[in-house]
């Protein structure tokens, strides 16, 4: 087992551990604590990206998710009534839908895994895995230009929608 393998298992274990602590933390039902564990989950995932030499993805992961999205989570949580969330009991319906969702994701995962590793490995060998910024940018603006543009339009639509919702008397 090389150093890289060890690091992989270390970061993977951390990601899973923190991920579990986000949803079922035995010590605290405080949403702020959950959000902070989500930050740690994302940081460990960035570690996994670094091990894949995808430095750009790792940096963007920390920058966008840990640095901006979860700060906004915190912002919203602080403006809400946190006490109510702490008092809330686990609901049966929530439990069932949650377990079903996890089971579905697990099913897809197992399905992919059972497809055999040969196909996956062949694909991985064909594509250059070095995640430099320049090759990524080139791919985004040549091969994946259409999906990229569609995504940006989608984000624009979401933004316009939010503005429309937040300003009720828009006239």
């Amino acid at each position, binding site marked *: 087992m090389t150093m890289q393998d060890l690091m992989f298992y270390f970061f993977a274990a951390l990601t899973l551990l923190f991920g579990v602590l986000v949803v079922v933390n035995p010590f605290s039902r405080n949403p702020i604590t959950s959000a902070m564990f989500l930050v740690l989950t994302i940081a460990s995932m960035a570690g996994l990206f670094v091990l894949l030499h995808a430095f*750009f993805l790792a940096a963007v992961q920390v920058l966008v998710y840990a640095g901006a999205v979860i700060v906004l989570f915190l912002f919203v949580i602080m403006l809400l009534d946190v006490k109510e969330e702490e008092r809330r009991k686990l609901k049966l319906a929530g439990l069932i839908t949650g377990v079903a969702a996890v089971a579905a994701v697990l099913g897809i995962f197992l399905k992919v895994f059972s497809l055999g590793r040969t196909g996956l490995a062949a694909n991985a060998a064909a594509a250059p895995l070095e995640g430099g910024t320049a090759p990524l940018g080139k791919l985004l603006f040549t091969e994946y230009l259409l999906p990229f543009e569609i995504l940006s339009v989608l984000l624009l639509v979401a933004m316009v929608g939010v503005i429309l919702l937040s300003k009720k008397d828009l006239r």
Partner: protein
Amino acid sequence: MAWLDNLSATQQFVLFSAIKIACVIGVLMPLFAYTVMAERRISAWIQDRIGPNRVGPFGLLQPMADGLKALLKEDFCPGHARKIYFWLAPAITVIPALLTIAVIPFGSKLGNQSMVIADLNVGILYTFGIVSLGVYGIVLAGYAANSKYPFLGGIRSSAQMISYEIAMGMSVIPVFMLVGSLNLSAVIGYQTGGLFSWLVFKQPLAFFIFMVSAFAETNRFPFDLPESEQELVGGYNTEYSSMKFAMFFMGEYFNMIASSAMMVTLFLGGWTLPFFGLDQPATTVGMGLLHIGIFFGKVIALLGLTIWVRWMWPRFRYDQLMDLGWRRFLPLALVNIVITAVILWMRS
């Protein structure tokens, strides 16, 4: 140095990295202490006071007295505070500030070691990632204290830092369009050969937006609304005392130093000077040390500017601050990107 050659490449890398980290922290600590000192003396000079001049010759030992005082004061934790976050928040404030410095090239070469702790190919993205984590310390401090004023300070700070991060990120994009790389050593390499190849002359608007956003990111005047003594009694650090309070102070000054170092690297040519061939990597130890000296000289000059700005301008109002970030700087930065792109396209 036979034992040094016997080590493997990895071992040498680890050894030299550890030495560099130790040296950088060893320089940062006194730099922090004397920036605080300089701030107090300059503010006194601007306001026609005398300032701290009692401890040691010219008051030069004042930082040590301050440090000792911070350590010896009672460390009080209010009963209604959330203990864990109350303890964690000061540390979370200091760590990102220190991590930012890791990618900044603070000199050219000493021997055959390049003077940067981690020469990442995504240097600037790493920096922005870490800087964006800096907000947690302040937000958590505001939350942990569990009282009104710190809470308002924390909320203000999170909104302010996210807003200005965007303007800051957009303002440096033209720099990287010109350089063609995110690596900070490459940015310095681009700025060699003549004073006017410094990016501050090629991208003055980018430099201005970056500098003002950096003031806002480090919660310095005229953007120190999270602290805002008159309305918020000190904001997020109201409930803190002794060493924990000192750590917030340390975080703020480390951030100042890091942002100054970043500005020097991105816009002011880093460790280079356009005279006497000082813009080429050093071949002798003396030249290497001189480059490090030049870098710190520039950083100290920018720190002086930051301190001067603090005592010269009044504080913004909160709506003015948001207006400036979103409706002035962001469009200006976007226009700057488009203009740079058009010029590059015409030239090619």
